[in-house]
């Protein structure tokens, strides 16, 4: 396979794909990110799309520019990559993949980074510090079970599933053998998270606005008819036309005429120290058949309820400000989900007490779950409650995979808010559901 790749690379036209590198190593994790570093050179200069084609219908595309007689090293998100396409040039992604139990990324600055020996169970992969920082900031390291770091400062470690600063090899080996296990990743096919999907079909804002406008129209018509009918019945027709004109005017002014809805559900997982991980899911659907382009503030991956759905074409176009999902069809009543995990400053850190109000809070210690209800700011986790799950258990269950050990959880808001950082020219209704908050307690 490697020979075939080298042979293929040797006979390329302009631009040339000099090398393709799997940044998280040759581990077979087809539902998780497998970011690539592609070195591209060009004699005449190249400006165009660099495309990563996966084994499914998924393509990741990045617009690149290579100066004449120059070269560029480009980081690309990918999931189960098979082929790289740049202009008329195609290269096969190396595919000699193992299936280790643990994939451990090692900061290349560590003195023992290249000395760690991989085996069938554990795959160590040294990574350049700059690449590591970039991939962490993009949230593309969900395939890695553990990251061994020289230092943690300046890194967006919230997106890492597990990390440890291990200046010496002994500390690294101790961390590998004793680590409790990484946070659960969000996979390309993830049926559990689909429990959070809103009902398909109706655009909520359109349905609500239809009921409102139709009720107002009926009310106005009845009022107009009763008033005119009692005073000047001969003007009833004119009154009807007038009310109808008002109704049309109200439709043009106040009715959302586009067809796409997007609903964001998010969970923030706050560790005892360090950055929080924000798991963000965007569900989108349409009441009518559409081919929308949806703009996201981060790089997203699709999440399907069934593997068969992943075969349909879908393009994620990546740029410096996020990504755009396009090239897919949303039939009436069909839903699609996109996910991203990003590291960020926690909304609050609530190890002892909650600095902000928490709705429908629960706490789990020693495997026992206690429902505390709505908590005011300043209340601690020993507040009176009752044993067992809360009334919103069904809603919380998809997030419970991120609880891991002793933890407290609840919702930071009571009601939906407008989704401000996603967009589409077809968007009729974008909303963000209340943020689910998880505080790890140890």
């Amino acid at each position: 396979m490697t020979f075939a790749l080298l042979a293929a690379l040797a006979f390329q036209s302009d631009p040339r794909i000099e090398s393709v590198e799997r940044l998280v190593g040759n581990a077979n994790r087809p539902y998780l990110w497998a970011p690539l570093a592609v070195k591209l050179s060009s004699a005449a200069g190249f400006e165009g799309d660099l495309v990563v084609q996966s084994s499914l219908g998924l393509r990741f595309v990045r617009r690149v520019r290579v100066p004449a007689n120059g070269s560029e090293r480009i980081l690309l998100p990918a999931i189960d990559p098979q082929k790289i396409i740049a202009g008329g040039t195609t290269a096969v992604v190396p595919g000699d993949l193992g299936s280790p139990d643990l994939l451990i990324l090692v900061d290349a600055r560590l003195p023992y980074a290249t000395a760690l020996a991989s085996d069938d169970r554990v795959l160590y992969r040294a990574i350049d510090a700059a690449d590591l920082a970039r991939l962490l900031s993009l949230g593309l390291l969900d395939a890695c079970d553990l990251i061994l770091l020289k230092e943690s400062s300046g890194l967006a470690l919230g997106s890492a599933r597990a990390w440890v600063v291990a200046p010496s090899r002994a500390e690294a080996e101790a961390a590998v053998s004793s680590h409790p296990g990484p946070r659960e990743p969000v996979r390309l096919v993830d049926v559990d998270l689909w429990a959070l999907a809103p009902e398909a079909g109706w655009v909520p804002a359109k349905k609500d606005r239809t009921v409102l406008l139709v009720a107002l129209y009926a009310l106005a018509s009845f009022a107009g008819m009763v008033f005119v009918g009692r005073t000047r019945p001969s003007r009833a027709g004119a009154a009807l036309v007038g009310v109808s004109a008002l109704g049309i005017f109200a439709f043009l002014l106040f009715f959302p005429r586009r067809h796409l809805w997007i609903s964001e559900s998010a969970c923030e997982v706050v560790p005892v120290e360090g950055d929080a991980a924000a798991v963000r899911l965007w569900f989108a659907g349409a009441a009518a058949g559409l081919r929308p382009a949806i703009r996201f503030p981060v790089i997203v991956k699709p999440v399907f309820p069934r593997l068969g759905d992943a075969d349909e074409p879908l393009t994620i176009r990546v740029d410096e400000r996020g990504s755009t999902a396009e090239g897919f069809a949303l039939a009436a009543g069909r839903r699609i989900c996109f996910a991203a995990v990003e590291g960020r400053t926690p909304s609050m850190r609530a190890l002892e007490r909650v600095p902000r109000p928490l709705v429908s809070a629960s706490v789990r210690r020693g495997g026992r779950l206690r429902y505390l209800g709505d908590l005011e700011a300043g209340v601690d986790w020993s507040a009176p409650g009752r044993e067992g799950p809360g009334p919103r258990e069904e809603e919380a269950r998809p997030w419970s995979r991120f609880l891991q050990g002793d933890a407290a959880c609840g919702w930071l808001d009571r009601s939906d808010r407008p989704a401000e950082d996603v967009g589409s020219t077809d968007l009729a209704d974008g909303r963000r559901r209340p943020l689910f908050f998880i505080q790890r307690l140890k």
Partner: protein
Amino acid sequence: MEDERPASVLLYLSWIGALCGTLLLLLGDVLPVRLVFVRPETLFLCLLEVELAFVVFVWPWFIPSLALPDAPARGSTLRLLREVGLLVVASLPPALIAANVSNVEPGDFLLAQALLWVMGAFAATLFSVGLGRRWTVGAWYLLGAFAVSSVLPFGAFIASSLGVCDLTWLARISPFWAAERGDPFWPVLVYGVLAVALWSFSPGQRRIAA
């Protein structure tokens, strides 16, 4: 607008009540069961079928009280046609909303409105001519409307299911069937031509008996 009667107000109220009430019932989640046929893509069709049902079966009941007793039959017909036009205009706000929800193309929307108007105009012309010539139209009209609306599509369905013959061409003149198929061209043509033919037979100067 001379000699308006409260019947027109009652007609308008019934019309608005039927349309808005239908949408509120379908979308307001007030029924104890979920209506599986009500989906975004079928909302416009649901509304159109209710509009057609009103125009075909309810609107004719208002015609005798709306026809001008002292006017020539053609003058009375014109007034009835104007009333049908007013009904279509009054239905525009809910129809536009439903069409947007169902993502109906403008051409299909206009054809649906034309179907409504033509069905109303056909009934108006038929009753107006019947009143002018002192024919008993009502019972025969209802029987015919029932046959065309349901017997023909049902017969076509049975014939097609049994593999006897293809009677779909016959079912196409049912306005309900045509609306459901999204192809109201034939009913618009057939009932439009019939309305014009009836109009040409209407007694121009004869006055309608009160």
